[in-house]
């Protein structure tokens, strides 16, 4: 029987893999950005698990900076998404494969 920390780390691994799978297989740009957020959340879960297990503040401090990085990333990513939609007229990442002369 695994303890709660092993369960949480396993959950973090599986959630990270699910997010990475979404980044690879999804065609919608917004969903790909959301799958990146899923991966970031799994990293935060791992940090918190190890911090709670060792009763130290280092992992908790790292989660704060992960939140800062995620906020910066989402601001820039959405600006780039808006520009891409203006230029290409679609959110489909695989659109160029269908445009053949």
């Amino acid at each position, binding site marked *: 029987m695994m*303890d*709660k920390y092993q*369960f*949480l*780390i396993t*959950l973090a691994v599986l*959630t*990270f*893999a*699910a*997010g990475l*799978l979404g980044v*690879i*297989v*999804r*065609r*919608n740009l*917004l*969903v790909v*950005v*959301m*799958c990146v*957020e*899923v991966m970031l*959340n799994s990293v*935060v*879960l791992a940090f*918190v698990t*190890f911090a*709670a*297990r*060792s*009763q130290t*503040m280092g992992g*908790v*401090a790292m*989660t*704060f*900076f992960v*939140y*800062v*990085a*995620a*906020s*910066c*990333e*989402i*601001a*820039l990513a*959405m*600006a780039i998404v*808006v520009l891409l*939609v203006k230029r290409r007229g*679609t*959110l*489909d990442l*695989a*659109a160029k*494969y*269908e445009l053949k002369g």
Partner: protein
Amino acid sequence: MNFALIAFFGVLAFVFALLVVSLRQPMRSALALIAHMICLAALFACVGVEVVALFQILIYVGAVMVFMVYVIMLLDDRDASYVHVFSRWSVPGALAIGLVIVGLGMLIAPAPQLPGVVAPAAATSPFSFSAFSLAFMQGYWFHFELATVLLVIAIVAAWTVISERR
């Protein structure tokens, strides 16, 4: 009881993560992601790190996801990605993810316990707001200042990217 709650919210969080990956409409994926983050906040509270649970709700759900929902409402267009949801890399991607899971599983599985020492629970929570604030003001103040600089850079960069050239 604690482990039952952790297992419940853990399974829910994983289910919502799978829904984020598999749902067709981006708005529904966003709502699944919000539910996933709320389940993670519950997990953080169950292990005693209420500070991070609060930050998860305030910053991630309250700011990041609200921003993303607004962008989805502005940009959501029913283009080809609604008909063909998954790319041609689905099968190789799934195989690669299987290898990633096996690799990460081999990292965490061999030891009967996770490496490191399990510290006994303190009489008072080491993750209180006062302890968190003191740690930032004493040990991580430089990292905190760098983070604020990063935020300013991100704001300036986002404005530069989005502003129209005249």
